[in-house]
């Protein structure tokens, strides 16, 4: 009997023992990181030289919308009728990546509150000092039945410095009339007064032209500072900041919690923002302030055609500075955005030097806007981690497939701002405590991304079980 009792006790004891496991932190679980909200702020240079480009931006805006609603097909998603709604719902549930919940707003590069160009006594016109233009000033499909139409109206009616009307046959540097134009017709490739009256109203008057000093970074910063309840200290305490406490919250709705923020600067000049001294090409001081917002901010700039390698411009009708243009280029590179040239050269010999070359013309804005759509579709390449990981323990999976750690390319090639260029895979950035994806491994929006890692210290919280 003693043997039997011992055996029973041994069996019971062994069963009572628990299996012990080591634990990994897990980041990127479905909704925790999936973010398809994009708040897009256009910062438009509203100086007199920009009306051509502003027209192109407005007239080509449909390319952007199409790239967003269906990046794979580029054909848009039909939204007519109940059947389409049901189809779209099913599509949304199964392929969320094809839908980006975006909203749009416009401010300008005019950030000088003392500037009263039209002499009407209003120091801050809509679009200046980070304020937004148009009505509604934040365009979202929930509140705006015609997103492209409202955006085009905001650009052309409230954010563009228009030249005068054309006299005679010459249509250079002026806006012509088109007596045959009827509202609703395709305006083609040229904006006319008749078209503007259709979209802006008969009693519309062209807005005030912007400041001669284009401050794209400052304008973007002020717009964001106005949008949050508790702006970063940098909004107020940098030299020359025009922001006052009363401005806080004046751009309510511009930023949604956790949304990706994309700042799109459209200008034919470099940045002349007040925080940085003239000649300074490093935008880090501004980027540091942008980092204080609780959102990821990416810059996309359509700006002067400057080649930093040979330090030359090809077409520079706006008279941009090299250092001011480099600021924009570096800002886009360090935030993962893109820089596109606002002008292209169509000279027979392919060369357009000088500031006012006759062969320079506005570049294809439909391509820029499609690039912007692509940027949004591939934006999710940064995954912040909750705890500090032991880098050797990081495991990354996308849709169940192991993604290898990326190695820097041959000879650790360096990009223009001194960062190594990586091949496909992921890297861990200590400063951001984030995992970054590179190349073709950047996950699609609907991908299931899982990042496992062992925290440097013990688990940051007690297990619930």
């Amino acid at each position, binding site marked *: 009997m003693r043997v039997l009792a011992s055996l029973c006790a041994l069996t019971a004891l062994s069963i009572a023992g628990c299996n012990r496991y080591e*634990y990994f932190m897990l980041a990127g*679980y479905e909704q*925790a990181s999936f973010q398809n909200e994009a708040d897009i702020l256009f910062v438009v240079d509203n100086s007199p030289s920009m009306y051509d480009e502003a027209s192109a931006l407005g007239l080509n805006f449909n390319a952007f919308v199409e790239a967003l609603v269906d990046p794979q097909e580029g054909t848009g998603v039909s939204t007519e009728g109940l059947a389409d709604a049901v189809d779209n719902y099913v599509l949304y549930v199964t392929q969320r990546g094809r839908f980006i919940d975006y909203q749009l707003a416009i401010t300008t590069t005019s950030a000088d509150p003392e500037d009263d160009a039209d002499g009407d006594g209003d120091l801050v016109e809509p679009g200046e000092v980070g304020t937004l233009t148009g009505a509604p000033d934040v365009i979202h499909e929930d509140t705006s039945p015609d997103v492209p139409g409202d955006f085009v109206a905001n650009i052309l009616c409230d954010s563009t410095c228009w030249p005068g009307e054309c006299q005679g046959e010459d249509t250079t540097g002026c806006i012509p009339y088109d007596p045959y134009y009827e509202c609703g017709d395709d305006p083609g490739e040229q904006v006319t007064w008749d078209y503007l009256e259709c979209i802006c109203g008969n009693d519309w008057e062209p807005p005030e032209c912007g400041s001669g000093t284009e401050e794209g970074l400052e304008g973007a910063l002020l717009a964001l500072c106005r949008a949050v309840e508790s702006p970063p200290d940098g909004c107020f305490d940098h030299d020359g900041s025009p922001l006052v406490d009363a401005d806080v919250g004046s751009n309510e709705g511009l930023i949604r919690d956790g949304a990706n923020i994309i700042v799109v600067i459209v200008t034919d000049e470099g940045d002349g923002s007040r925080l940085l001294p003239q000649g300074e090409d490093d935008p880090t001081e501004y980027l540091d302030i942008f980092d204080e917002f609780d959102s990821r901010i990416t810059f996309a700039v359509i700006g002067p055609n400057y080649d930093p390698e040979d330090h030359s411009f090809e077409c520079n009708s706006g008279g941009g500075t090299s250092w001011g243009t480099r600021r924009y280029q570096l800002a886009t590179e360090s935030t993962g955005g893109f820089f596109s040239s606002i002008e292209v050269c169509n000279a027979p010999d392919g060369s357009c030097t000088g500031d006012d070359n006759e062969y320079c013309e506005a570049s294809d804005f439909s391509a820029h806007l499609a690039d912007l759509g692509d940027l949004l579709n591939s934006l999710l390449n940064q995954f912040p981690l909750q705890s500090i990981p032991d880098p050797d323990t990081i495991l990354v999976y996308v849709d169940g497939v192991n993604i290898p750690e990326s190695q820097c390319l041959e000879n650790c090639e360096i990009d223009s701002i001194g960062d190594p260029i990586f091949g496909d895979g992921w890297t861990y950035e200590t400063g951001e405590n984030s995992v970054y994806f590179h190349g073709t491994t950047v996950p699609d929006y609907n991908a299931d991304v899982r990042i496992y890692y062992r925290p440097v210290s013990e688990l940051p919280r007690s297990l619930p079980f």
Partner: protein
Amino acid sequence: MRSRKTLMPLLAGLLSLPVSGAAYGQDTVTPVDLGLLRDSELSVVQKRLYPMEKRTELGVHVGLMPFDAYTLAPFARGSFTMHRSESFGLELTAGGGYGFKNSAYRELEGPAYGIAAEAYRYLGQVGVGVEWSPAYAKLNWRGKKVYHHNFYFLGGAGLTIEQSVLPAKDMAFGPGGSVGMGLRVFRGKAGSIRLELRDDIFIQSRTQTSTTALKQNVSLSVGLSRFGKER
């Protein structure tokens, strides 16, 4: 007990009687005095109705491993037992299954906690061991049916095959031992129903954390077995 009480005096009386038949041919007969047998000096064990000695037993079992913190594994197992005696047998086992993440694991790896254990799921096991059956009994069920059954203990060694539940799906082959206990209810001379509680204890090397741990797979199973003919 009543039969034993009447049997003892009767047996004693019979043994003490003179062998009267032999007395016809002999003059002197010396009776043998065996003395008095007490109850404690006698034991009677009834012959087993369903013997196992020198028979083989082939079993098929299905069961569950419900006691792990993060996985739940249904499994099937086959067994082949060679009963060397009524008490001892040698047993070979082989089984397979699949450990699913349980609700606790899913909650843990969810957005609320963001934690993933390097748990391993059961895939299979092979083993060899001995079976000791110290008790055989009958159970009268409501006066209508008698169930013959035995209790047994298991001990042995084996190799358990598991796979990490992390997406890396690392495999682990863990050598170890097994203990267990069971109940065999005979369904006739040909077969039985077996209920088993078993604990496979093995060493597991875990790839992602480069750790080695002792793991237990505690299983509950029910099976059907069929006995071979006596050799």
